[in-house]
């Protein structure tokens, strides 16, 4: 009965695994490496795993032989030995030697992954709850990268597309074959910027700027996820890196610069209520809706409702203050002054005061924000 049950269970397990997943080999291993470092890690893992498998087979081969042969039911009489200094010394020294053999390639791996010297370019990555900011300091280009999977897919109301939860509105773009130094930090809590195909995972820690690097060997789109618990939407802040040829990258960078100049709404202009609301809605959906919800209902008590809230329907100054400088009593509300520009801030506050069920009728102009920044 027992052996039947055992083989049945094992069979079920193997069948489940083979039917479900043997079709795609990479499901059983690390992702296909796209950098030298990732390749080293891949090889290191394979080596160590096989050494472990070999030891396992030998040790448990002996054990199961004993279980089979040295059974009472097979009439085996117990021996009485209980120590053997020679054997004990041997099985202390052999594992030690194996470990030294493993340590050598591992040390090499560490040294090469830590070598951030002489990069061709630098990007700065900042983690926010729950999005990434990519900054190209040499080019003056900076943008936020947020999940682009629609809410309806997450809520199972629409079919999920191929890159479900691994797609963003604005990926990080880098040229192929260039050594990219990545400076990683965070603004609120600890995040971790990770791209498995590049062999990179670097915690993003407020107050620290840590660095890592990669040199992508071929063009393509590579995906990872935030890898340090960072709150409610930790599972919804993917990392997407597009590797382009140098020519395409240059084109992209030129377009970014042009776009950044064109899109920027003039902070000195006075806008109408509808203009502010229209722009504010976009800002709200990108930055605020994750916590306060698209309807403004919030998720009390940590993420309060905006609909009819004392802040969104009360005095304007207090509303501007909490949006710009963060919640003094509730640390879950970040300070947006550094992330958003004057037009975005003015628009989103106006939107919150005149939509989501609120009708204060007042508006905030970019100039008011600008004045407060001084």
């Amino acid at each position: 009965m027992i052996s039947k049950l055992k083989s049945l269970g094992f069979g079920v397990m193997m069948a489940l695994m083979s039917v479900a997943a043997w079709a795609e080999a990479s499901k059983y291993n690390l992702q296909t490496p796209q950098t030298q470092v990732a390749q080293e890690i891949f090889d290191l893992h394979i080596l160590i795993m096989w050494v472990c498998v070999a030891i396992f087979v030998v040790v448990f081969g002996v054990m199961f032989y004993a279980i089979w042969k040295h059974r009472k039911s097979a009439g085996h009489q117990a021996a009485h030995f209980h120590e053997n200094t020679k054997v004990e010394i041997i099985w202390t020294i052999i594992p030690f030697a194996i470990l030294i053999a493993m340590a050598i390639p591992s040390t090499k791996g560490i040294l090469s992954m830590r070598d951030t010297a002489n990069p061709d370019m630098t990007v700065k990555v900042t983690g926010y709850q729950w999005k990434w900011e990519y900054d190209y300091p040499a080019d003056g280009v900076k943008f936020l990268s947020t999940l682009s999977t629609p809410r309806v897919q997450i809520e199972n109301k629409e079919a999920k597309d191929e890159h479900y939860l691994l797609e963003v509105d604005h990926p990080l773009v880098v040229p192929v074959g260039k050594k990219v130094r990545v400076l990683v930090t965070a603004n609120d809590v600890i995040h971790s910027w990770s791209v498995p195909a590049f062999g990179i995972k670097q915690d993003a820690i407020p107050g620290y700027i840590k660095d890592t690097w990669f040199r992508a060997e071929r063009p393509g789109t590579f995906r990872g996820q935030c890898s340090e618990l960072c709150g409610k939407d930790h599972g919804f802040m993917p990392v997407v890196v597009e590797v382009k040829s140098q020519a395409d990258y240059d084109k992209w960078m030129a377009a970014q610069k042009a776009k950044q100049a064109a899109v920027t709404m003039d902070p000195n202009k006075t806008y109408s209520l509808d203009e502010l609301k229209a722009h504010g809605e976009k800002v709200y959906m990108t930055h605020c809706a994750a916590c306060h919800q698209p309807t403004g209902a919030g998720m009390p008590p940590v993420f309060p409702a905006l609909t009819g809230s004392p802040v969104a329907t009360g005095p304007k100054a207090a509303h501007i203050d909490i949006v710009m400088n963060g919640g003094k009593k509730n640390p879950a509300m970040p300070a947006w002054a550094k992330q958003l520009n004057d037009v975005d801030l003015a628009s989103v506050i106006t939107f919150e005061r005149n939509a989501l069920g609120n009708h204060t009728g007042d508006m905030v102009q970019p100039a008011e924000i600008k004045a407060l920044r001084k």
Partner: protein
Amino acid sequence: MEATHALDHDHGHDHGHGHPTGLMRWVTTTNHKDIGTLYLWFSFIMLFVGGTLALLIRAELFQPGLQIVQPEFFNQLTTLHGLIMIFGVIMPGFVGLANWQVPMMIGAPDMAFPRMNNWSFWLLPVAASLLIGSFFVPGGASAGGWTMYPPLSLQGGISTDMTIFAVHILGISSIMGAINIITTILNMRAPGMTMMKMPMFVWTWLITAYLLIAVMPVLAGVVTMLLTDRHFGTHFFNAAGGGDPVMFQHIFWFFGHPEVYIMILPAFGIVSQIIPTFARKPLFGYASMVYATSSIAILSFIVWGHHMFTVGMPTGAQLFFMYATMLIAVPTGVKVFNWVATMWKGSMTFETPMLFAIAFVCLFTIGGFSGLVLAITPVDIQLQDTYYVVAHFHYVLVSGALFCIIAAVYFWLPKWTGHMYDEKLGKWHFWLSTIFFNITFFPMHFLGLAGMPRRIPDYALQFADFNKIASIGAFGFGLSQLILLVVVLKCIKGGEKAPGRAWEGADSLEWTHLPSPPPYHSFETPPLVK
């Protein structure tokens, strides 16, 4: 409950001053057997509480998309699952076994400080109520992970404070338990029982108790710093105030890694009792077992950095922590070889405790190997915070620690209750547990290698197959544990009468010198150990 019998028919004579009965008996008891029973039942109840949280997690992860719980609540589930399983199941489980067994195995009448013993147990339900109750306060339970990393944990609501107080209380309980165990072992051994004659379970608990005393205050300190950061304006972990969020991780893991061994060393001890018993052959390499256990305990203080490779330490620190971590494989290997050598040329039978012990040796070794893979810093960078780590620590904590507690319960149930348990049900329990355990956790290695982060409520489509398998396994594993409940209840109620020496190969004092069940007060005159 079983001791009630003993009390009734055995001890009308020796303590005529009436014991309280009913509930008050358990509230006021200072008897090591009663307190051991309380610890074990507490641990068992918390196993079902923590297991229910785990099943909610696995139900949500059965398929991509959000179906059952929202992300915020999901984070509460993972946090409380971790805290409850570690502090509510594994640690009290081992303390319960120590309470029952250590005095009987060293020939002592009771624990050294019986009243403190009572208090250290009764703190546990208080802490557990704080933890479980935190689900019902505004904002829900603590959602920053069992590791409570700031600054995220600084964002939490009142439940975070409840968790901090629960950790304080659990820490006090553990320290008192450890003091009691150390004092008992060092001072109350029967004449003739030298240190190197103590059963391995006693040895491993002695070392574990020292680890507890060394690191529980560290944990208490670090969560207190968290508390003052939250409420009293300190900035220990707030970079904006000149503090350092990484310092929390250093202090936490200085506690956390020895904690890992606190949860496994007593398991090593249990297996070292069970395997020789059912192999009918003395434990191979007793002395080297003692030295290996001590080496593991000492090494556990210098490896904490391996939990933090992705923080970005200096290269030299990464190398140091990698080498030190790899070194742990040597004494651990010695132990595994010793167990195999104990079985070699034995005369083995395979009752349920032995089955669990053998499964432990195999599956714990798989967890040890994945630990070795994770020790290699460059590989760890890929696998840190993925499901590979989840697979790794469930192999060492479920098939390691939990399987050993279960093995110990089967092994000593005949002693505690005076009845043999239902062997057929026991074997069902073993096979179902082992098979479903592997269906649950083995595929998680693949998920981690493919890059699925841990602690996420929803995942990309390529992770769907293995998650589905793992969820099926989890429900099978969880439901199988109900069999253990049936076995235990049946065994308490009745069953075949167990002789004093219920297992042919058992040779420690509780088997050779005491009837089953043992009298309420045993070894009032110490036995002589030759």
